[in-house]
């Protein structure tokens, strides 16, 4: 029996090649998309599951859920101070460690070079994060101060062909040179990890941060990550339940100009398993960029939609050409087949088609995964068997698609009444299955296609907008140099600025603590006269030439001036009590941006000029510093358009400002860069020169958005292809079915264009109706998506109309050629058929 089904199934496919091709191709595309997305989703969910004892390893996060100003800030970081308190408070905690990222200089053969992904800790971090070791013991490697472990890749880079164990590495950080002994090598951390670590160095953080005691004691200073390992069987939820009490007992009150504040009032703690960090709610202050569950869900839904469209093709084409199978069905019934047997037969056939499509899909997956993985910078591979293998999902997919695509046709086909089908001379019945259903399905398919096209257009437009929106500064012609704030450069900053300024083509050089796409945030509270609630402003330092160098225009008042002593906030670093006290007493002039002026309650920028506020610019001990606003500059967007614009107060100070902004014009950028580098190396040979052009920085800033937009466009394209395949098949079939009608129309005088118009119109209608379905849904989804951007395009009618027209055009092109061929045929042939 099964052999018989197989023979009939295969021969019936072979007989209707177009039908078979459309179905198999469409299903293969849908299945491949599904499998690729499955691999991607699994990959995203696999983050840090590889880590030994991952189920007991947690990250302590500090979430500013109720900040004084602006949207919530959910950090993966936590203050150092929270670590010891956490361990003391909760007996479930077996061990904890703090790690902070640093960008020191490594001295190798006397040559300075920057190290990336360098972490400092003051405990045995490897005892908490149990990274698999390649050399050395996990327990012993970081048990001593001034020991250091490397990743395999870093070890191979620093000590090619040598055993690194026991070797000494000299690191320059905060102006001090320190020796570390290499005590272990850990296996390279897989890409599916929220961690990216090349070096972990253990030292005494208390002496390292001796000049900034706040760093380790203040609960509002989040500059690193706190990890904890719980005891076996410990209940993380029980700890979470105790956080409110924990905050009350441990976080000290602060005095802000006479007002009591407490970090616990504006922030909450979260205990997140390492496996959940990557997709967690908190995506700020991360080690590696995370992802959000929503975008993963979106991709999964799009994959299923494409597969659904391919199944719809199957249903439509099977029911449309059901008449061709009617005689066979009737005959089988006459010969004693019951309906169940026929349903089984047709389901077996659709499963066969699904299986053939799956073979093609698997080949596509093997072919497409490497480029897709490279594109997403994900370490995805095709595994066949076991957990995470695709053999089982592929099998399930074949069965699901076979049944989803085959059930309705099977029910329709098996319903034929033999007596009516087998009448002499009537070998075929009319097209069975409901034409209304077919139309509804086609409308659904096109609605999905149109919706995806709209989304693609909007996402693309927003991506372009993000790159081209007026950022409030002149984006072209900037070279940004990293590391000017390094301690050992303090004495040379002035010289470097002067020498770089002499380079041909350079028009301005500025220093700043907020550069292009930098990830540091610095906030402070300011007190307005006669207003009880303090406001929160960004607190950044710049030098006198920063605004001209960055190309930020003045809106009201004046810029900071090197000839006016009160414009300078320059003090010694490390802070000296005398100087700080004097500074707090005399006050300082500052420039704010337009948003800050508005936040402070001034409707017009000019209103802010000359007004005085009090800000926590110096240590608490010296009280609030009186600040006079002397100028208002344009709002400038130095960061991604996703990040809300910061209301900012700029004071003049070069110490601690880490970036140098070099504006140039009229010369080849590479030549300018080479000359700037030469000047730098002359003055500071022991500090690496790390510089990037503004367009490079902006490109990287939006690289992830671009990748997402392109992947979305790719899937939209797949959906459109699958939809068009189905439409083409349906058009082919309808033209066949209407051959006689077309013949009669032609005999009665219809012209070719009349026939073409007839067929094209028949298939254009569902596309037009699909617009009505797709538009509101796409509008709703895209409005939501755009709300995630601080600067965004307006959602006008253009993408909707464009997508509708595009879909119509594609549909007409798909069926037009076919309609033309049918319309041109000699009507005699058509009529002789009967």
């Amino acid at each position, binding site marked *: 029996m099964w052999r*018989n089904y197989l023979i009939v199934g295969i021969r019936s496919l072979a007989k209707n090649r177009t039908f078979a091709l459309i179905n198999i191709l469409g299903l293969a595309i849908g299945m491949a998309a599904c499998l690729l997305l499955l691999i991607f989703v699994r990959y995203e969910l696999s983050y840090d599951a590889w880590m030994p004892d991952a189920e007991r390893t947690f990250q302590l996060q500090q979430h500013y859920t109720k900040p004084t100003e602006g949207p919530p800030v959910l950090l993966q970081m936590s203050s150092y101070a929270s670590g010891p308190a956490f361990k003391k408070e909760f007996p479930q905690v077996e061990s904890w460690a703090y790690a902070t990222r640093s960008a020191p200089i490594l001295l190798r053969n006397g040559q300075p070079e920057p190290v990336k992904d360098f972490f400092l800790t003051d405990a045995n971090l490897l005892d908490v994060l149990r990274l698999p070791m390649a050399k050395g013991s996990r327990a012993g490697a970081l048990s001593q101060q001034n020991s250091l472990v490397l990743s395999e890749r870093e070890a191979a880079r620093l000590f090619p062909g040598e055993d690194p164990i026991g070797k000494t590495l000299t690191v320059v950080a905060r102006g001090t040179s320190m020796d570390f002994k290499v005590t272990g090598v850990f296996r390279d951390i897989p890409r599916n990890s929220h961690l990216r670590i090349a070096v972990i160095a253990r030292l005494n953080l208390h002496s390292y941060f001796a000049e900034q005691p706040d760093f380790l004691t203040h609960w509002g200073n989040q500059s690193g990550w706190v990890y904890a390992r719980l005891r076996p069987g410990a209940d993380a939820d029980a700890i979470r339940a105790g956080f409110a009490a924990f905050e009350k007992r441990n976080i000290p009150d602060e005095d802000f100009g006479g007002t009591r504040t407490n970090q616990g009032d504006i922030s909450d703690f979260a205990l997140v398993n390492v496996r959940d960090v990557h997709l967690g709610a908190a995506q700020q202050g991360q080690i590696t960029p995370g992802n959000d569950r929503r975008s993963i869900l979106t991709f999964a839904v799009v994959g299923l939609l494409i597969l659904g469209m391919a199944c719809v093709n199957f249903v439509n084409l099977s029911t449309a050409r059901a008449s061709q199978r009617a005689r*066979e069905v*009737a005959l089988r019934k006459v*010969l004693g087949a019951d309906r169940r047997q026929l349903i089984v037969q047709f389901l077996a056939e659709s499963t066969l088609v699904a299986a053939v499509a799956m073979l093609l899909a698997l080949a596509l997956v093997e072919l497409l995964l490497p480029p897709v993985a490279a594109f997403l910078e994900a370490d995805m591979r095709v595994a066949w068997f076991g957990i995470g293998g695709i053999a089982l999902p592929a099998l399930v997919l074949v069965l699901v698609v076979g049944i989803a695509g085959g059930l309705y046709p099977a029910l329709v086909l098996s319903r034929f009444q033999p007596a009516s089908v087998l009448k*002499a001379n009537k*070998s075929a019945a009319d097209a069975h299955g409901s034409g209304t259903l077919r139309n509804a399905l086609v409308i659904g398919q096109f609605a999905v296609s149109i919706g995806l096209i709209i989304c693609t257009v909007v996402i693309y437009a927003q991506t372009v907008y993000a790159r081209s929106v007026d950022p409030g500064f002149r984006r072209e012609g900037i070279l940004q140099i990293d590391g000017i704030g390094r301690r050992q450069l303090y004495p040379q900053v002035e010289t470097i600025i002067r020498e770089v300024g002499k380079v041909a083509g350079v028009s301005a050089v500025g220093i700043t603590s907020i550069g292009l796409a930098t990830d540091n945030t610095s906030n402070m509270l300011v007190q307005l006269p006669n207003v009880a609630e303090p406001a929160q402003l960004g607190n950044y330092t710049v030098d006198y030439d920063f605004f001209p160098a960055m190309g930020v225009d003045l809106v009201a008042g004046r810029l900071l001036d090197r000839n006016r002593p009160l414009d300078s906030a320059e003090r010694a670093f490390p802070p000296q009590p005398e100087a700080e006290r004097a500074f707090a007493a005399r006050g300082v002039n500052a420039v704010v941006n337009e948003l800050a002026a508005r936040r402070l309650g001034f409707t017009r920028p000019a209103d802010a000029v000359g007004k005085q506020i009090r800000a926590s610019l110096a240590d608490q001990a010296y009280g609030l510093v009186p600040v006079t606003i002397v100028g208002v500059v344009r709002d400038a967007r130095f960061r991604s358009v996703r990040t809300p614009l910061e209301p900012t107060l700029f004071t003049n100070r070069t110490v601690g400002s880490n970036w140098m902004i070099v504006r140039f014009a009229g010369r080849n950028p590479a030549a300018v860069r080479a000359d700037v580098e030469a000047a730098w190396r002359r003055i500071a040979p022991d500090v690496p020169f790390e510089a990037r052009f503004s367009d490079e920085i902006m490109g990287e800033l939006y690289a992830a958005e671009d990748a997402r937009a392109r992947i979305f466009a790719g899937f939209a394209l797949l959906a459109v292809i699958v939809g068009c395949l189905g439409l083409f098949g349906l058009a082919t079939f309808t033209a066949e079915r209407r051959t006689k009608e077309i013949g009669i129309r032609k005999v009665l005088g219809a012209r070719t264009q009349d026939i073409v118009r007839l067929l094209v119109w028949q298939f254009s209608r569902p596309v037009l109706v699909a617009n009505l379905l797709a538009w509101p849904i796409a509008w709703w989804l895209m409005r939501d998506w755009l709300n995630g951007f601080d600067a965004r395009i307006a959602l006008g009618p253009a993408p909707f109309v464009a997508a509708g027209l595009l879909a119509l055009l594609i549909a007409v092109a798909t069926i037009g050629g076919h309609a033309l061929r049918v319309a041109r045929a000699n009507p005699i042939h058509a009529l002789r058929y009967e």
Partner: protein
Amino acid sequence: MLSLRNLSRAYRTDTVETTALDAIDLDIADGEFVAIMGPSGCGKSTLLNILGLLDSPTSGSYDFAGTEVAGLPEAKLSAIRKRHIGFIFQSFNLVDELSVRENVELALLYHGIPAAERRARVDRVMDKVGIAHRAAHRPSQLSGGQQQRVAVARAVVGEPKLILADEPTGNLDTAHGEEVMRMLQALNGEGATIIMVTHSPAHADYASRVVDMLDGRVLIERRQAA
């Protein structure tokens, strides 16, 4: 073998009701060879469909081998049909995708007969109708007469008691028509009951009884010497 009493069949559309069969009384005994004749639209095919359990009467009774089958559910009818009735059609109705052998075998697939026995029976019956040498061919590669022989083989391979033939010679030339008629005659000789719809008086002469129909009624029944 079968007996119809006051059997009617009406077709309804939204506006009109057409009576295809009007109060038919008919008895057919085991081993008979009955020809049904009449002009187009007189209800011959409807009668044959009802006799073959492919259609159900609107009213009246139909006794098939001692069982009242009028009003039985589709599954029961299907079971009786499978066991007792073979069909031959004017347009052969072979499955294009299957070879001659597979087409004949199709009739046995739904009987749950083991493969070896199926093969033996298919061979035997193909031999009998003279198409064994064409076993691997597809229907499209055969002449009309050969196709109808395949259809006959398929109708008899299940060894039914009743063979229903709907204008079995309608699509054939004279020589092939005669050939098929002789085949039916031989089957009748072996004990099968045959009911055949035909337009051809010459072919009706092969039957032991002729039923003439007009407008859904039995006009006359003629018995004739075999």
